[in-house]
């Protein structure tokens, strides 16, 4: 049997067995869970060859599964992050209720994402897409909070997207007579103009929803923050990348072939930019870490969308690199929040403070991830941002640069808020009992933090697969050509101009650590944060001086007029209006049998009157 089948069977069987294993023993359940994620991941990277295809026919539809370089790139995100998150989840879910439910859906959603990447035909693509949607939906509502508002909103948006995609799929099938993606791409240039425009739009709707693109993003903050953090790292890190994956495919294989494509790209790029700004502004205002990170995810996805939409080779490199980075740092950050929530029971900045000495390793990973998120030099985030700006400027998107730059500058605000809110500030007695999260949770975070560090210095590690992937999509090899011509990345490769700078940063840094930190640290003694001098008097032990409520208020006050109008409100008003209409419509059923009988006569009479028109 082919490895691909085996992978899916392990996933599926694993999901079911894991679900029921909880009835036998909890540890068995954990082990089964890990096995059913890690083994397929191993098999995938070890045994599945790129370019290999398997075909099968189901329900009269021929399905085809296989992998190319481009999807392999995303499988790195999905299975890599998925495996780490799985390990983390074992720690996170310890002692929680409904573990079987969680594990089941976790496995299924990893399977679905793998399936999406493996799909070479639209039907299995759609099937896996929907499985991904509902499994993630089920985890989103796992804790039972706000299931009706957040959960349904997520699902409705996903469904609207998915149905748009379904329409596109069947239209493609109508035109080409086949469900294969290859056939669709092949037939696309010869289609009628209206089809050429509508099919990408509908696909982009589907992908835009998952990638939390601007008018379709309203589900994301709620869903991201409501899911258990062990899953949200995958949700925000990997699942949203499926939208990016699809978007890239549509843009490259379809939109590029029509002259109107440039409008698609412009609109998408701007939507991405606006998404970034909106996400950032809202993130700054949040007091809940989960919400903050959720909005931040929306914003980060905006950058990625912009990069993909610009579509020059450099922009693609930037977008995909940012995608990988986003998976890493946002995965880490959600894990951090999860660890904190696990240890303290809350994820609210206004409640938790001063954890830095209690959870040093968590803090370290959070710090590195935040630095990467903010795009500050030594870490990988900077490389992606840099390429993005460069590509925006070289492709003449001047205003967009400003927009993106504004978003990423404003991102510092919430970055700091995140770090300060949890780790800094007064160390309160209330949290004195807090301990570092178990190793099984800390380890994945640290591994990812390490990756970010490495990628900042050696981005080629991930740029190489991206390059292969882009070549698979028909882009030219950018290894020499692009990295040479790029103003930023000139003579990258082995002899890197940036590297001396990075080394010198490291050198200076170490120097000052030696000069100031180490020596100072040795010579001074630690005193509690209660013992602060400058405020005139020493606060009492039970006095809470941490400044955390309304943290970024000055900034928020400045941008308030822009934030009064929320898209969310419009959607809600629309939905309420619809429901009111429905409420009115259903009064047709008056409950009076006579009225119903009159309806029958009305029906007959109307048909008789219009019979010449109807038949």
């Amino acid at each position, binding site marked *: 049997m082919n490895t691909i089948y085996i992978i899916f069977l392990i996933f599926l069987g694993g999901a079911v067995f894991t679900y029921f294993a909880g009835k036998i023993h909890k540890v068995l359940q954990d082990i089964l869970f890990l096995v059913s994620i890690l083994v397929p991941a191993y098999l995938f990277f070890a045994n599945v060859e790129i370019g290999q295809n398997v075909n099968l026919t189901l329900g009269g539809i021929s399905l085809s599964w296989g992998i190319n370089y481009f999807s392999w790139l995303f499988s790195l995100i999905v299975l890599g992050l998925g495996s780490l998150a799985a390990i983390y989840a074992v720690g996170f879910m310890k002692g929680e209720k409904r573990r079987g439910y969680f594990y089941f859906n976790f496995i299924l959603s990893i399977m679905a994402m793998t399936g999406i990447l493996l799909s070479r035909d639209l039907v299995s693509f759609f099937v896996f897409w929907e499985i991904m949607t509902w499994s993630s939906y089920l985890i989103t509502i796992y804790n039972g909070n706000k299931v009706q508002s957040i959960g349904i909103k997520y699902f409705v948006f996903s469904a609207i997207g998915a149905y748009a995609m379904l329409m596109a799929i069947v239209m493609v099938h109508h035109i080409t007579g086949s469900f294969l993606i290859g056939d669709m791409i092949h037939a696309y240039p010869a289609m009628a103009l209206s089809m050429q425009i509508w099919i990408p739009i509908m696909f982009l709707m589907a992908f835009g929803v998952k990638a939390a693109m601007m008018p379709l993003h309203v589900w994301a903050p709620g869903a991201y923050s409501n899911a258990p953090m062990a899953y949200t790292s995958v949700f925000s890190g990997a699942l949203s990348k499926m939208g990016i994956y699809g978007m890239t495919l549509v843009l490259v294989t379809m939109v590029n072939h029509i002259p109107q494509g440039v409008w698609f790209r412009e609109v998408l790029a701007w939507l991405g930019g606006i998404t970034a700004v909106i996400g950032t502004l809202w993130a700054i205002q949040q007091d809940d870490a989960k919400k903050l990170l959720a909005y931040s995810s929306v914003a980060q996805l905006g950058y990625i969308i912009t990069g993909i939409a610009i579509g020059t080779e450099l922009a693609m490199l930037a977008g995909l690199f940012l995608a990988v980075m986003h998976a890493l740092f946002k995965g880490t950050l959600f894990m951090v929040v999860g660890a904190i929530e696990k240890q303290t029971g809350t994820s609210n900045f206004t409640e938790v403070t001063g954890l830095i000495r209690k959870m040093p390793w968590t803090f370290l990973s959070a710090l590195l991830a935040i630095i990467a998120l903010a795009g500050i030099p030594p870490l990988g985030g900077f490389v992606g941002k840099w390429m993005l700006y460069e590509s925006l400027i070289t492709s003449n998107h001047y205003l967009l640069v400003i927009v993106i730059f504004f978003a990423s500058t404003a991102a510092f605000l919430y970055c700091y808020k995140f770090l300060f809110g949890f780790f800094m500030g007064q160390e309160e007695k209330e949290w004195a009992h807090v301990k570092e999260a178990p190793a099984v949770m800390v380890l994945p975070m640290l591994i990812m933090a390490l990756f970010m560090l490495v990628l900042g210095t050696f981005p080629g590690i991930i740029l190489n697969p991206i390059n292969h992937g882009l070549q698979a999509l028909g882009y030219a090899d950018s290894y020499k050509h692009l990295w040479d011509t790029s103003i930023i990345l000139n003579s990258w490769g082995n002899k890197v101009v940036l590297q001396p700078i990075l080394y010198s940063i490291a050198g200076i840094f170490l120097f000052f650590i030696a000069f100031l930190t180490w020596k100072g640290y040795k010579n001074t003694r630690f005193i509690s944060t209660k013992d602060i001098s400058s405020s005139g008097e020493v606060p009492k032990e039970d006095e809470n001086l941490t400044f955390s409520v309304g943290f970024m208020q000055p900034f928020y006050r400045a941008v308030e007029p822009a934030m009064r109008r929320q898209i969310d409100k419009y959607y809600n008003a629309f939905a309420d209006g619809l429901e009111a209409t429905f409420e009115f419509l*259903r009064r047709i*059923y*008056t*409950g*009076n*049998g*006579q009225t119903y*009988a*009159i309806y029958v*006569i009305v029906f007959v009479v109307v048909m008789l009157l219009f019979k010449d028109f109807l038949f």
Partner: protein
Amino acid sequence: MDSTLFSYLDYAVYGTAVIVMLIGFYGAMVKKSLLKIVIGLSVIDSGLNLLIVAIGYYKGGTAPIFSQGFLENFKSVSKMTDPVPQALVLTAIVIGFGVTAVALALVIRLYRHHGTLNIDEIKNLKW
């Protein structure tokens, strides 16, 4: 018999049947009492049955019975009225009876449950 007069009679039979039906419909749809509604329903049935039987009629036709006299006098079945509508009407009547019986039983139940026969007050199920 005068042929024009007879053609008016044509209209009379069908017309009566249709009017009976319409009366039934009116009763079933406007009257408030459950019993009157049921009566209306069976009036519809009556009109309908009349209509159906009328279709089978032929001018000057005999009953579709091969009595001794018929066999001797006519020899031709084309002189007989159409037996099929009659057979169908038989079935329809019986079915109508069944439905009416059920409806009446339900009226009893409704009266027991709601204490009224006014259909406007029996609207617990709606929307």
